[in-house]
């Protein structure tokens, strides 16, 4: 270049005296070895957020996408207009479902470390997101979850042995050992088959909701994705469809701060909230304390009532924290401050509900400790039961020829030939 400094700059070229352009690459507030830093989080007081009418126009409630709906205060009291005022039995049911989810996660994580399966993903710290929502929906509403909503199945009393069979890919696995552990499917539980491809379930949930509306049904759909995968095109096409047809759907974004090692800034969190994605689509957007199960329940009930009265979809951001690694294949100490999970300012969802029910006089430490012991025994017994059906790689799986089933409703000739070839080869090998 004859003029590297652009001194002779002419029209259409970068001239002199202009600053060089810079690329902004987001960086989280703290890396390993550094102190956790949450100073950039604004955490409004519990009860401070107003509660709009379920039929409110999205344009009249834009602030809801930037605030944080919170019900449980620092003392564990339920306060403000979003207090769902749940009866004691529902509160205790929530507590038990969250504790069972955590006990289940602990047991299955250990099973993976013991080599009984290939992979596991815990939902530690995020139990309120799925349990609070599941108990606010009707049992026959259809859920299109992502991979960290095992709490929905647990809240819907799905047998945990069945879930474990899936994790072990054993002969009792209803999915015939075809899916990665935790990618459940349970039609009877209103739980759609989980995909490993991110956010593909979003337009599917909208389509299910549109079908329900077109057929004059009363059931609604709900779906979940992580904050990182709001960057996927499917998220945006789903929002467009949901908005255009006012589909009776609840779209949940679980903002647990980390998409494997990429912090939420790589999905746009430095510029706005995820609930605010709703505003551009003319959808109701709520931002919720995802570690406050009463807030999650109240927001979900609000959105469900809205959907059921044909007032349209709602996008809910659940502001929470992924306490553990992304999966058993991940080591979070390699990319984030070790202190973060213990210092997370919104606390632990189980501890917060426990404090609340103890404050109400319907629960105490002794009963809680007894429940934890009982649940630990229960998941241990369930795991033993599931292990009778086999663990991954130990031979107790569905028959080999089942691999060729369900590709199509009827098996075409080429799959029949390949099936026979496989059986012949194994036979010839003396196996």
């Amino acid at each position: 270049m004859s003029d590297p400094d652009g001194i002779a700059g002419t029209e259409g070229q970068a001239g002199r005296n202009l600053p060089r352009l810079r690329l902004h690459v987001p960086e989280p507030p703290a890396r390993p070895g550094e102190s956790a830093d949450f100073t950039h989080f604004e955490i409004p007081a519990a009860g401070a957020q107003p509660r709009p009418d379920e039929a409110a126009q999205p344009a009249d409630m834009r602030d809801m996408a930037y605030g944080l709906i919170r019900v449980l205060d620092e003392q564990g009291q339920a306060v403000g207009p979003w207090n769902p005022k749940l009866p004691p039995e529902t509160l205790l049911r929530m507590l038990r479902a969250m504790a069972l989810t955590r006990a289940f996660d602990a047991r299955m994580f250990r099973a993976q470390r013991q080599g009984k399966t290939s992979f596991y993903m815990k939902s530690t710290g995020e139990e309120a997101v799925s349990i609070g929502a599941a108990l606010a929906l009707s049992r026959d509403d259809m859920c299109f979850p992502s991979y960290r909503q095992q709490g929905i199945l647990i809240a819907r009393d799905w047998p945990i042995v069945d879930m474990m069979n899936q994790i072990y890919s054993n002969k009792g696995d209803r999915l015939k050992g075809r899916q990665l552990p935790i990618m459940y499917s349970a039609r009877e539980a209103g739980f759609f088959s989980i995909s490993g491809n991110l956010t593909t379930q979003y337009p599917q949930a909208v389509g299910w909701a549109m079908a329900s509306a077109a057929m004059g049904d009363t059931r609604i759909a709900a779906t979940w994705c992580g904050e990182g995968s709001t960057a996927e095109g499917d998220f945006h096409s789903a929002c467009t469809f949901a908005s255009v047809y006012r589909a009776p759907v609840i779209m949940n974004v679980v903002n647990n701060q980390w998409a494997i090692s990429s912090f939420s800034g790589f999905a746009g969190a430095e510029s706005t909230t995820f609930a605010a994605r709703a505003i551009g689509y003319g959808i109701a957007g709520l931002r919720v304390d995802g570690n406050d199960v009463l807030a999650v329940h109240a927001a979900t009930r609000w959105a469900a009532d809205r959907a059921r009265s044909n007032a349209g979809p709602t996008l809910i951001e659940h502001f929470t924290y992924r306490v553990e690694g992304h999966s058993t294949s991940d080591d979070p100490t390699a990319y984030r401050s070790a202190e973060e999970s213990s210092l997370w300012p919104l606390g632990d969802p189980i501890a917060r509900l426990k404090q609340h029910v103890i404050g109400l006089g319907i629960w105490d430490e002794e009963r809680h400790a007894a429940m934890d012991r009982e649940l630990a025994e229960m998941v241990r017994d369930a795991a033993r039961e599931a292990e009778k059906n086999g663990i991954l790689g130990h031979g107790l799986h569905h028959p080999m020829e089942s691999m060729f089933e369900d590709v199509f409703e009827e098996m075409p000739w080429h799959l029949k030939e390949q099936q026979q070839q496989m059986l012949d080869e194994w036979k010839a090998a003396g196996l």
Partner: protein
Amino acid sequence: MTMIQAINSALDVMMERDPDVVVMGEDVGYFGGVFRATAGLQQKYGKNRVFDTPITECGIIGVAVGMGAYGLRPVPEIQFADYIYPALDQLVSEAARLRYRSAGEFIAPMTVRSPFGGGIFGGQTHSQSPEGIFTHVSGVKTVIPSTPYDAKGLLIAAIEDNDPTIFFEPKRIYNGPFDGHYDTPAKSWAGHPDAQVPAGYYRVPLGQARIARAGEALTILCYGTMVHVVENSVTSLGVDAEIIDLRTLVPLDIGAIEASVKKTGRCLIVHEATRTSGFGAELLSLVQERCFYHLEAPIERVTGFDTPYPHSLEWAYFPGPVRIREAINKILRD
């Protein structure tokens, strides 16, 4: 009927018979589709069953997966097959695998209609033939009609089928057969024997090829527009070729292919799609594996070239009569 009218009639028949059939896509509702394939359906069946969609192919297919899981039988249209790529993840990872991964708990019984193929000066974004991408995917069926009669019967069978089906419509022959001579006046379906289409319900089953012309000298495997181009080339050469219109690529009628090649001992494969890793390569392998000792000459392929589809040089790209004649002569010489 033209092929467009036959497709419209198939949709009409199926919407009438089954309240779960819904038609969706860009411009398919009020306007009735840019090719008029869905004309009149919204007026007849209402906006809950025939509706326009936002311009997002991944959204259209994703929504159709959800509708199928609910229990409907969606027939989404992708306006041009060239625009199917944004929907690939929903088709390949979701629709095609839903039955398998849920062990039959959920299915995606959709029929994705899409005009495909070249010969209309559509340039690189309105001319492609992406069938090979889908035949490579486990769990999705691929159907390509070549006549109005087959278009209606196959479309009805596809809509009734509980597996996701890609239904590629050769748009060059929507309104009349095309013999490959781009400089002669367009022909009409009127009076063509395959354009006699019953008004009511009938099926052409998936997985059954059609012998478009019986013969002894060689077997030509083809589908879509190419069936007509091949027929014309064979007639003008005066060769006693057997022309097999495959009609469905998955499931494939291997019996018809095998029987014909074993009889003639020679085989030519013709398709518009690009050559490398195209469906012709699969056909060639199958014929080689099953008919090797019956072959009297190497199997030949006439295909589109491995370039993007050009605009001004369309007729140099299109596998037309000149190239087909050369290939036939070569096979018969060997």
